[in-house]
């Protein structure tokens, strides 16, 4: 009995005009979106590879330790493998973090697209197509599942036989869902085929598990929508009324809702403007430099020296004992610079922590607001679904923030490494000369008159010195969440969607039991 009803509904759906239009539309959208998104992923992956090798090359040219931790070291995050499926926050939050000894990595926004038009429109991904277009298609199928039959008079006929109402309802549901699932699965298979064809995309078994979960949750979402549609269909007298009401809900819950929840979350958990944070950070840096200038001019006056005896000296400011790189200088200058370094570097690191505290505070508040917005979004099944898919694809805000966390921990690891090599508060920070070989100015004056001796003493320049061997430095690993973590993150929304399914089915059942099946009823 059940199977008969299901088959009948299935046939009605498949042979209808809207199935053909819907099917073609969905497949076209899936294919187009996938092609473009995979292309975009390939580009981003290539950019990532180039950026990483550029960074490696730069570090390979480091001559002194300040080249490693004073020049900004940029850590890169590879694009998420499933980002063509669900883009999430991948492009809005930066995929690189820069760190130095005086700067803790902070939250940054993504690089602005050259074409600002792209930035202003919603980014389309497969989950969006499912959420919007398939969602609408589902409502289109569901709105006259019962009321259409009622209007045609076949509902009264069907129920006049020994057909229990719940069997009829279940059959309608299954028939509709199989139709939708067919359109959806064909689309997904096409998309996966196109993804696998690209040489840049390589999915391992955790990725397949995630994909499977995304497919599953998509079906649960579509099913919830379908049941909602059926309920509306049962409750309304004319199918056009139910369609208009469903459209109203669709607009409110899919299109308008996120703005509402963001506005509400911003109201309930306000966050200071970004400008306030930058201002405080800027003030702290100004405070540091004022202090350094004051102390340096008071306690560390520059000793007398001869320009001829200094080669390739790069410092923060002419009169200040705070070196970056010195190829050669007389002993007095070197010792003076080292004193400045030992004095001011720890202070600068302290200020880095103070500035970080300001940023961390801000990020915490942002995080609280985001979590509230996400919790509020659970009221809309469409956004509950999107957030879950985003978590599973590894493109949600948490994943991005986890990368930032790891970057910060890596900074500490790197500083420990440099200290272990005695490169932080010693001559090795800015020079490659052995302290014993330093010559004072009088000694250099002596060498002056002896032909080439002075030049030989000073040397040729940085190119004549081999780069530091930094191959034993700690590696940065950017592993993504394990599947188990993603699933746990996604679990509340998944449970909610399943619950919605059951609730809507129950509602439909109860309403159907009491509904008048006659034409015009």
């Amino acid at each position, binding site marked *: 009995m059940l199977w008969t009803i299901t088959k009948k509904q299935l046939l009605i759906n498949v042979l209808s005009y809207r199935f053909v239009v819907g099917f073609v539309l969905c497949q076209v959208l899936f294919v187009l979106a996938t092609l473009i998104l995979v292309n975009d992923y390939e580009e981003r992956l290539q950019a990532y590879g180039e950026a990483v090798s550029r960074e490696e090359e730069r570090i390979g040219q480091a001559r002194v330790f300040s080249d490693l931790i004073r020049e900004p070291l940029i850590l890169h995050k590879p694009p998420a493998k499933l980002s063509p499926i669900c883009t999430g926050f991948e492009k809005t939050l930066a995929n690189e973090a820069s760190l130095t000894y005086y700067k803790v990595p902070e939250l940054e926004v993504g690089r602005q697209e050259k074409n600002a038009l792209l930035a202003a429109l919603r980014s389309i991904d497969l989950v969006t197509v499912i959420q919007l277009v398939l969602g609408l298609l589902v409502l289109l199928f569901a709105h006259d599942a019962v009321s259409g039959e009622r209007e045609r008079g076949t509902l009264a006929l069907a129920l006049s036989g020994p057909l229990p109402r719940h069997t009829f309802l279940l059959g309608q549901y299954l028939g509709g869902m199989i139709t939708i699932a067919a359109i959806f699965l064909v689309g997904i298979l096409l998309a996966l085929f196109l993804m696998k064809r690209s040489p840049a995309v390589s999915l391992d078994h955790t990725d397949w598990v995630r994909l499977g979960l995304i497919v599953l949750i998509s079906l649960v979402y579509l099913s919830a929508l379908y049941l909602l549609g059926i309920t509306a269909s049962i409750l309304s007298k004319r199918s056009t009324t139910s369609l208009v009401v469903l459209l109203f809900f669709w607009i409110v819950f899919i299109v308008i809702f996120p703005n509402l929840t963001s506005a509400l979350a911003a109201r309930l958990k306000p966050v200071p403007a970004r400008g306030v944070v930058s201002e405080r950070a800027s003030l702290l840096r100004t405070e540091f430099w004022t202090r350094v200038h004051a102390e340096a001019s008071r306690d560390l006056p520059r000793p007398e020296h001869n*320009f001829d005896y200094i080669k390739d000296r790069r410092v923060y400011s002419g009169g200040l004992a705070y070196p970056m790189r010195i190829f050669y200088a007389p002993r007095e200058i070197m010792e003076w610079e080292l004193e400045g370094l030992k004095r001011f570097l720890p202070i600068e690191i302290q200020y880095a922590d103070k500035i970080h505290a300001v940023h961390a505070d801000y990020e915490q508040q942002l995080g609280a607001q985001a979590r509230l917005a996400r919790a509020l979004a659970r009221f809309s099944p469409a956004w509950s679904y999107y957030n879950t898919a985003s978590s599973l694809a590894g493109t949600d805000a948490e994943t991005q923030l986890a990368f930032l966390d790891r970057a910060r921990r890596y900074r500490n690891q790197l500083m420990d490494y440099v200290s272990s090599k005695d490169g932080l508060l010693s001559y090795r920070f800015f020079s490659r000369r052995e302290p014993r070989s330093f010559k004072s100015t009088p000694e250099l004056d002596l060498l002056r008159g002896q032909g080439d001796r002075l030049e030989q003493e000073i040397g040729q320049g940085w190119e004549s010195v081999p780069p530091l061997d930094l191959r034993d430095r700690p590696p940065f690993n950017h592993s993504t969440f394990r599947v188990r973590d993603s699933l746990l993150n996604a679990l509340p929304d998944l449970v909610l969607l399943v619950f919605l399914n059951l609730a809507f089915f129950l509602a439909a059942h109860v309403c159907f039991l009491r509904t008048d099946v006659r034409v015009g009823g």
Partner: protein
Amino acid sequence: MTNLVEQPKTGSETPALPTAPSLTRIHPFKTLWTVAERELLEQLTGLRFLIIAILVVLLTPLSVYVGSHDYRIRMESHERLLALTSANQSLARGRNPALYDQEVSWTPYNDLELFRVIRPPVRFSVLVKGLDGAMPEYWDFSAGGLQTGPPASPAFWMGDLLGGLDVEFVIRVVLGLLAILIAFDAISGEKELGTLRLALSHPVSRPVFWMGKLIGASFSLLVPLAMTVVLALLSAQLMGTEVADRDTVAKVGCLFIVAGIYLLSLNSLGLFVSSVAKTQKTALVVLLVSWVMLVLAVPPLAVLAARALSPVHSIQWYEAQKRSFSDDLRTEKENEIGRAFREITGSQEGHLKTSDYHNNKEALDRRIEEIEDEFVDRQRRFLNEMDRNLERASQRQSVVANSIMAISPAALFAQLATTLSGTGDSDRQSWIEAVRTHQARLNQFLFDDPGTLTVRNGGSSMSMDRGVRVRLSEVPPFVPPVRSWTTTLSPVLLPAALLCVFWSLFVFAGLAAFYRYDVR
């Protein structure tokens, strides 16, 4: 009143036959107005109208709230940035009181913020956000070229991923939906009810009937549009944004006109489909699918398709090209200077002595300046060409995207609304142009003279601070882009014309279809 029943001329007094009132001709305008009035009343008292009206009443203040909140945040950030920059400038002055009036040694390590250009947020973005949030908050100028600051409103949360809720969105999506919902059963619905046959059995010609329907539906659309606009203005005023000035009122007026044309074109599309479809259900399904495609799907798809058809290398690629060219060029220049050094001082290959430089300073400086000029010229030409290529490629892509989007009246409306508000693509272009010009001017004034000189002689290298002097008080000021009626009108004409074309196309098509419509 023409008497259509001819009286036979007889002499006897025969009573005149009563003339059938239904055969008298009534002025077509009166019929038109009757039909229109009836349609208008029917729509205004319907369920759909009520639902959409509720949506409008709820959404308009909400969208204005979101817009004004966002604008306030951007304004605060803007003011803070201005204060910070001037504080930095006065601090620099404090550190070296003579900074502005005397010559200062310029090196690449000087504070970039001295040359920052900060873009103020556009007040009308409270109503029509457009690109105002996506555009950069500021630009920095340096020897390495233009550096773009972060976007004014970075999109952190999923709501922003949708492109934001603003008045333009309410008109484009919600009122657009109303336009469709009013029209879909105008003809096919009446046919199913049987009233169409009745109506046409009266001496009402088909075109008059159809036009009456169109006019009635149009007025019933203009009512909620007016409601939306008035409500938006009131909410904006209540939330603290000044709307009473001439500029804003003019913009709102233009927005109203443009929105009216947009809604009428959607409505005529709906009426056309209704005059072709046999049942109202078919009409509804077709129109809904069209609505989804035209309003929601075409704009982002157009952008994506443009990306695929007319690809542009990523910014990173361009920057990598520029970087590697600059590096190579710099090494070449340093070697060239080394060669000059060898020539003038008579040093051998691989020997570099600072004293040699100071002994031959004058001759060396002159030669070095010549070499610098030549290499700066080469670098500037290459960088300009790269920038030009990027701009051209982006332009091409924009043109492709806009052409594809032109099939959607909704996309055209979005373009028009943002251009009229000062938050559109043309405004972005004019800012980019102004900023580029400023960089070029600063290049000429300051950056082309580097502060640190590196000499390469064989395996030996030497870096020196050349002490290039510049007067910061003479830095050329930034000229912001100017918005005049001519700059606003030219990008508006084509999309507006296209919208009118759509409208008239659908009207004619609908009329033609209705002539052949089977009313049984």
